[in-house]
């Protein structure tokens, strides 16, 4: 009866051949499909260099589907070509021949007799000592196989094993153990040119709780080292305490104004202080050359005809360009000129900072914001430059902005004459003017940089990279609280009524009119009231022209000789105004300048 479901057997396959000691070996195979019939398997082989084919000598020892080659049948350094034949009633099938060299299939049994012992010698660190024996079949003594060992251990509950390579030795010491834990240990071996064995069965040991890993020597060493370190630190601090502290906390620079005596300041003797500073009578007659004052802020005092005052309010309008009278006389003279600024000099300055918006001129109700301090890169050639504050980017008067300045960030910066004096005198002698802390704080709080304009940012970078000053920003802020004469009153603008033939300006106070004053260069206003000084002649005569625009830009030119038209009218070009007037001969050259401090050239016209 032919059962059509029956078929010859499928192809068997040799899975693995292995030798535990390089003296015998075993091969296992996997049967193919049996074809529905009882299938018998045979293993046949022949050796390299022989033609004779042999059959497996032992099918039993290795288990089912295996063949065990004992010592007699095993040759090392010889290739065996082994084939499995599956035979059933329908047919037979042979596996692919497998080429086996016993030399390269050595995989020993795990080491045996792993013992663990806790040793706690006196005066020494306690440790775990473990030892084992090579697997029984492997012949290590004759050198036929050379074994290397590896141990691993872990606390019972831990998930990770800690593996240690033990070389050819059959013992090992573990030093770092946690007391109170139960440890599991395993070991395995590898012949010199073979495969790793399996891990031996686990051995466990319980570490007692009093298994202390004391090492007083280490702690003594650590304590001594710490003490030495502390002593060194104390000594270093004692010797170089100040320099260390100054390294960690750099001292805040105080004002360094030439001739500035802090002791006098503390005593409150402002007159002596100012005289020590070198504030000359107004207008200053000496040391004008090296002073740069860009903005001059005039106070609203009784002497209205002498001093133009800023208008108090500029609600949201463009900034009022306040310019420093480049005449150094004006800046300095205000300090000592009682007729002009006596009241200011005595009153404490109420403004939190030197620079305020026009709205907040009188009192510091409107603390200035967004006041930027920049250097005019063009003025690098000047000596004794004083950075001046100018309104932020919104004020087109100060920086040549690629875009129209913002309207709402209008701030006008102005200087109190006294401030100018302060700054001027400070800058005159020193390359760096330093301010006291309070001023600096006020300054900094008000200092922001308008980032609206790229040009401004570029300028700012230039400014910051200005080499001569590092504390330029701080330099400008005069010590307001300390200068009682620096009182800021409401400053008004004056309008030039007329210019007489002598060149004297007759001024009228401007009554809080802001409508015509806008800092936006883009909105020209009809500013009939304002006269624009086009140039100053050699005779210290101001040539004024009517400027229909209302560029409230304060432009300062470094030299009186510079051509004013070179400066764009609407652009704020910050030049460091320098007090270039020779003694008693202060000059003003202002391009596009709307406001003048007549006090600055008062003497020249009278």
């Amino acid at each position, binding site marked *: 009866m032919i059962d059509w479901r029956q078929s010859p057997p499928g192809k068997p396959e040799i899975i693995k051949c292995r030798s535990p000691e390089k*003296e015998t070996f075993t091969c296992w195979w996997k049967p193919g499909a049996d074809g529905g019939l009882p299938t018998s398997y045979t293993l046949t082989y022949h050796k390299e260099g022989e033609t004779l084919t042999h059959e497996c000598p032992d099918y039993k020892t290795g288990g089912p589907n295996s063949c065990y080659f004992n*010592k007699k049948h095993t040759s090392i*350094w010889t290739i065996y*070509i082994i084939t499995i034949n599956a035979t059933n009633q329908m047919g037979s099938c042979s596996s692919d021949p497998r080429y086996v060299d016993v030399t390269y299939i050595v995989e020993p049994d795990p080491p045996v007799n792993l013992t663990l012992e806790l040793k706690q010698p006196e005066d020494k660190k306690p440790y775990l000592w473990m030892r084992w024996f090579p697997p029984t079949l492997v012949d*290590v*003594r004759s*050198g*036929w196989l050379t074994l290397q060992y590896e141990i691993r251990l872990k606390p019972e509950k831990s998930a990770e094993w800690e593996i240690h390579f033990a070389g050819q030795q059959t013992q090992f010491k573990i030093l770092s153990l946690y007391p109170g834990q139960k440890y599991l240990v395993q070991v395995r071996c590898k012949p*010199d*040119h073979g495969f790793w064995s399996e891990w031996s069965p686990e051995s466990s040991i319980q570490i007692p709780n009093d298994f202390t890993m004391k090492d007083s020597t280490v702690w003594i060493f650590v304590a001594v080292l710490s003490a030495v370190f502390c002593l060194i630190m104390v000594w270093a601090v004692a010797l170089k305490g100040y320099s260390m502290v100054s390294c960690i906390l750099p001292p805040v620079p105080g004002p360094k104004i030439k001739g500035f005596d802090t002791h006098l300041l503390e005593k409150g003797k402002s007159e002596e202080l100012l005289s020590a500073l070198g504030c000359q009578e107004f207008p200053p007659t000496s040391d004008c050359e090296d002073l740069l004052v860009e903005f001059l802020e005039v106070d609203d005092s009784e002497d209205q005809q002498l001093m133009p005052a800023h208008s108090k309010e500029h609600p949201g309008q463009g900034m009022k360009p306040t310019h420093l009278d480049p005449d150094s006389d004006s800046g300095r003279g205000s300090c000592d000129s009682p007729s002009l600024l006596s009241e200011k000099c005595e009153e404490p300055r109420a403004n939190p900072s030197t620079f305020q918006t026009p709205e907040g001129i009188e009192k510091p109700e409107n603390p200035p914001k967004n006041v930027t301090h920049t250097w005019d890169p063009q003025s690098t050639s000047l000596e004794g430059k004083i950075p001046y504050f100018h309104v932020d980017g919104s004020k087109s008067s100060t920086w040549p902005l690629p875009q129209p300045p913002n309207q709402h960030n209008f701030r006008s910066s102005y200087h109190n004459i006294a401030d100018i004096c302060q700054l001027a005198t400070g800058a005159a002698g020193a390359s760096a003017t330093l301010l006291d802390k309070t001023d600096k704080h006020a300054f900094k709080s008000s200092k922001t940089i308008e980032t609206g304009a790229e040009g401004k940012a570029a300028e700012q970078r230039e400014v910051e990279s200005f080499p001569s000053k590092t504390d330029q920003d701080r330099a400008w802020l005069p010590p307001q609280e300390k200068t009682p004469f620096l009182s800021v009153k409401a400053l008004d603008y004056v309008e030039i009524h007329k210019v007489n033939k002598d060149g004297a300006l007759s001024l009228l106070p401007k009554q809080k009119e802001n409508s015509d004053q806008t800092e936006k260069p883009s909105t020209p206003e009809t500013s009939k009231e304002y006269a624009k000084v086009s140039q100053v002649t050699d005779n210290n005569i101001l040539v004024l022209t009517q400027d229909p625009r209302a560029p409230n830009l304060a432009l300062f030119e470094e030299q009186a000789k510079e051509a004013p038209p070179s400066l764009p009218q609407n652009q704020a070009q910050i030049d460091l105004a320098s007090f270039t007037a020779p003694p008693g001969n202060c000059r003003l050259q202002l391009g596009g300048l709307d406001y003048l401090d007549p006090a600055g050239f008062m003497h020249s016209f009278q």
Partner: protein
Amino acid sequence: MLRAMGRDKASLDRMTFDNLTGSLLLLLLLVSDLLLCKSVASLPICPSGAVNCQVSLRELFDRAVILSHYIHNLSSEMFNEFDKRYAQGRGFVTKAINSCHTSSLSTPEDKEQAQQIHHEDLLNLILRVLRSWNDPLYHLVSEVRGMQEAPEAILSKAIEIEEQNRRLLEGMEKIVGQVQPRIKENEVYSVWSGLPSLQMADEDSRLFAFYNLLHCLRRDSHKIDNYLKLLKCRIVYDSNC
């Protein structure tokens, strides 16, 4: 010894003298033994009293075993790399049967045979195998170098093996000089004639020639390593490694 002597007085005197002599000799023997015996067993091949011989043999064997172990590791790696890179699917393994030039040297094929050979014969055998590989290694380096896209890994290993093989040969000759200085053997080795195969135009044949050479090198380096470890344990540690 004392009891064996006679009991009369003369013999007693003689016995005493003999006793003294005996004890003296015993003492001398013990002292000389203590001086000579650094290890549990003294080397069977070193003349007694030659302490330098024992120490230097141990060092020589240690060094030789390190070299042979290293050479076999390199050969094994080189073969595996070549096999992986050039011999896949070409069925070289079926053809590399009984094709090693050193098979004419009657080397022991299992542990029993190796343990039965006298250590001098085994040393000489090792020398022969080592000498047989001088020429093939030299040509292996030059031919691998000449291969297009010469594999750097294989070339560097071949160069290293060639050099280490030379050093091992020197070491073995020193050991042989110490173990059996009186015998001066003719330099016998197997001649290798596989160079034309390495230079064949047919790529498949040429690659098989390389495969075969590397296969034989791996095997022979394992043999040398195994024999040397056997000899070391037998000679230096008295079969008690």
